[in-house]
């Protein structure tokens, strides 16, 4: 019963948080607790509905091939018909689950985390809108709907990253996030427009029918361009190289926001988009290769940066970039299932990692540098436990969730391309290492600052519960999903019944354990001196530490090619375009000046001009008359 109701009313899932945004924004903004209550209530209802939907999907015949669709015309003009609606298939159901779960937990967590902040109400408004936008994106029936919510997600990230608007860094980070993703959106929009022009529709299901026919008829050349353009959007949104720069800076927002952005919303939108339009991408091998390599490179690139970062959230951020690269890689090698599997598990453990990090920072008075922490495991046991679970999960240690999903990705990569597999495996090793570094430096060893240490305390229940729930999910979701047959549901094309490839799984696990050990050796046992290693690596260390100077390069490019050009054009506008008019006006004035001496006030010069005029006209008259006479000849 409830399942059907949930399915029929799936549109409520994004709408409820949006409504809560409106209510809070318009009415209850100044009443923090009330606002929080509204937001959490709405999210809870959404969450329940999402469960209902998932149940309905599981119970009913709703599969990837036979989705459930509701549509309503949004606007139409000429031949362009744009709908808003709900498309439910297992992919959607899974995403709804993940998003509602994480956002609900994050909201609960925020009740504690944001306590005392002046913008308490506002924060929940934005969080609600964020969740609503993401959910709207997930249930989109066509590209435009997806783009609409895609942009709204961008807006929310802007608002939330810049939540502490009085901080210049937050303000700039928000702007950067919006701008960078906007660059991606440009490509996406172009792609969408081309799709609309090529097929006359943007509806996923219709396109799914049309694309193969089109390829049969016209080949895939033009579609490749479209698909590449579409992929630019995910590059921006999901923080793929080279548009990854905004993601680490997004740490400027409150930590729950980081959790939300990095785990369940926003960044996975890109992955979701590629997954949703896999009917298109999977037909285009060149594009798939690009996706795979972008993903693979991003994964190892981000990991190599994460190794040297010192700020806890920044490390996590780069790990997110890296993991997203993983997901892209998975998509690129054609394994939708593994990508989304990883998306799900990653959502849980990454959310938890961030929330834990938030707890740590909360306890340490917003200190972010891990090397100024240390020894917190006694003070914050729950957080420590959660963090440990997270690290193990992300490192792919069985039986934690990450093991299963990562293994599937590696297997998929190995089946397609050996270099990609090696890349991915290497990344896995690095991931395990830097995550362990994070964990050990923060919680093990001696406190770096006794004062801060004394100040630290375990977090309250509002924050603790989400951590625990997520920790549980991080442990069980992988295994559970593996057992119930995730691949049966979330798939593209026929389901792949592959068991665990023990060779690959084993090798990656071994590598992960090795990495953990290495980290232990360095950071806990202190067998090797950290600084010495850093010094030895020299240039490489500097490159990694400074994020390969990508930000600086971009800043320089913008300064020269955008601001510089702007100044030049402005100069042109003022001094050339505008001046033409002024020159014309001056010319008119000059003519006036030129003529004015004639009006010298002397009657006789006036008479002179007059008589000159007489004579000129007379001369013309006589000339004319003589011509006339010559012409008429003897007429008279």
């Amino acid at each position: 019963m409830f399942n059907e109701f949930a399915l029929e009313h799936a549109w409520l899932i994004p709408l409820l948080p949006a409504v809560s945004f409106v209510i809070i924004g318009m009415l209850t903004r100044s009443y923090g607790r009330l606002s929080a209550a509204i937001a959490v209530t709405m999210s809870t209802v959404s969450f329940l509905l999402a469960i209902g939907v998932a149940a309905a999907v599981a119970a009913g015949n709703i599969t990837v091939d036979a989705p459930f669709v509701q549509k309503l015309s949004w606007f139409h003009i000429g031949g362009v018909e744009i709908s808003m609606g709900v498309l439910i298939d297992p992919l959607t159901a899974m995403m709804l689950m993940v998003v509602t779960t994480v956002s609900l937990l994050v909201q609960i967590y925020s009740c504690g985390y944001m306590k005392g902040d002046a913008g308490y109400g506002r924060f929940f408004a934005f969080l609600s809108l964020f969740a609503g936008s993401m959910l709207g994106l997930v249930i989109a029936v066509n590209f435009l709907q997806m783009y609409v919510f895609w942009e709204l997600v961008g807006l929310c990230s802007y608002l939330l990253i810049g939540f502490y608007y009085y901080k210049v860094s937050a303000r700039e980070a928000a702007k950067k996030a919006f701008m960078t993703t906007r660059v991606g959106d440009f490509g996406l929009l172009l792609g969408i427009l081309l799709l609309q022009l090529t097929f006359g529709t943007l509806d996923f299901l219709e396109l799914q029918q049309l694309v193969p026919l089109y390829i049969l008829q016209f080949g895939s050349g033009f579609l490749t361009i479209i698909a590449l353009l579409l992929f630019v959007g995910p590059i921006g949104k999901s923080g793929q190289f080279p548009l990854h720069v905004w993601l680490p800076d997004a740490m400027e927002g409150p930590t729950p926001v980081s959790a939300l952005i990095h785990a369940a919303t926003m960044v996975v939108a890109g992955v979701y988009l590629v997954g949703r339009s896999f009917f298109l991408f999977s037909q285009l091998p060149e594009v798939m290769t690009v996706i795979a390599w972008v993903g693979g490179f991003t994964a190892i690139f981000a990991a190599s940066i994460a190794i040297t970062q010192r700020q806890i959230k920044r490390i996590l951020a780069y790990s997110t970039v890296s993991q997203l690269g993983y997901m892209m890689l998975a998509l690129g090698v054609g394994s939708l299932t593994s990508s989304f599997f990883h998306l799900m598990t990653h959502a849980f453990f990454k959310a938890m990692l961030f929330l834990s990090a938030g707890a740590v920072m909360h306890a340490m008075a917003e200190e972010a540098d891990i090397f100024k922490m240390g020894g917190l495991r006694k003070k914050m046991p729950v957080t420590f436990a959660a963090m440990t679970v997270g690290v193990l999960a992300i490192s792919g240690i069985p039986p934690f969730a990450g093991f299963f999903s990562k293994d599937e990705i590696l297997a998929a990569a190995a089946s397609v391309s050996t270099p990609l597999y090696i890349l991915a495996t290497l990344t896995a090793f690095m991931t395990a290492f830097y995550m362990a570094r994070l964990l050990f430096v923060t919680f093990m060893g001696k406190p770096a600052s006794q004062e801060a240490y004394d100040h630290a305390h375990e977090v309250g229940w509002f924050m603790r519960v989400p951590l625990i729930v997520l920790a549980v999910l991080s442990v069980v979701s992988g295994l559970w999903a593996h057992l119930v047959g995730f691949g049966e549901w979330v798939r593209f094309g026929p389901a792949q019944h592959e068991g665990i490839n023990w060779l690959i799984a084993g090798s990656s696990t071994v590598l992960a354990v090795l990495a953990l050990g290495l980290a232990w050796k360095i950071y806990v046992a202190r067998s090797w001196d950290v600084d010495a290693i850093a010094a030895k690596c020299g240039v490489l260390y500097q490159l990694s530490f400074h994020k390969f100077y990508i930000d600086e390069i971009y800043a320089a490019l913008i300064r020269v090619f955008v601001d510089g050009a702007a100044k030049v054009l402005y100069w042109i506008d003022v001094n050339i375009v505008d001046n033409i008019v002024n020159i014309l006006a001056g010319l008119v004035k000059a003519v006036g000046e030129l003529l004015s001496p004639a009006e010298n006030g002397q009657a006789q010069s006036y008479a002179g001009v007059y008589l000159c005029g007489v004579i000129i006209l007379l001369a013309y008259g006589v000339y004319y008359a003589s011509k006339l006479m010559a012409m008429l000849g003897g007429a008279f």
Partner: protein
Amino acid sequence: MTIGLTHYLLLAAVLFAIGMFGVLSKRNIIAVLMGIELMLNAVNINLIAFNRYLPVHDLSGQLMALFAIAVGVAEVAVGIALAFRIYHDRSTINVDELNRMKG
């Protein structure tokens, strides 16, 4: 050589031109007025000569000349009165100095 219309017209033209010269070159208002009178007289010669030499049926040329004379007189009268005014105002009747307004 027969004296015809052409001669009179040329005479009138020359007289008119001399009047023009006077108007343009003299400094004194009264002298300028004299130039104007010469010009008006030249026109009258024209009119009367046409009346005499063209196949017309009445004396309208002469009549025109008559009225022109009257108008000329009136203009001179006003002109001289104005010259008085100017002389009264500025103790000069040099046309060149009448240039308060210009530009």
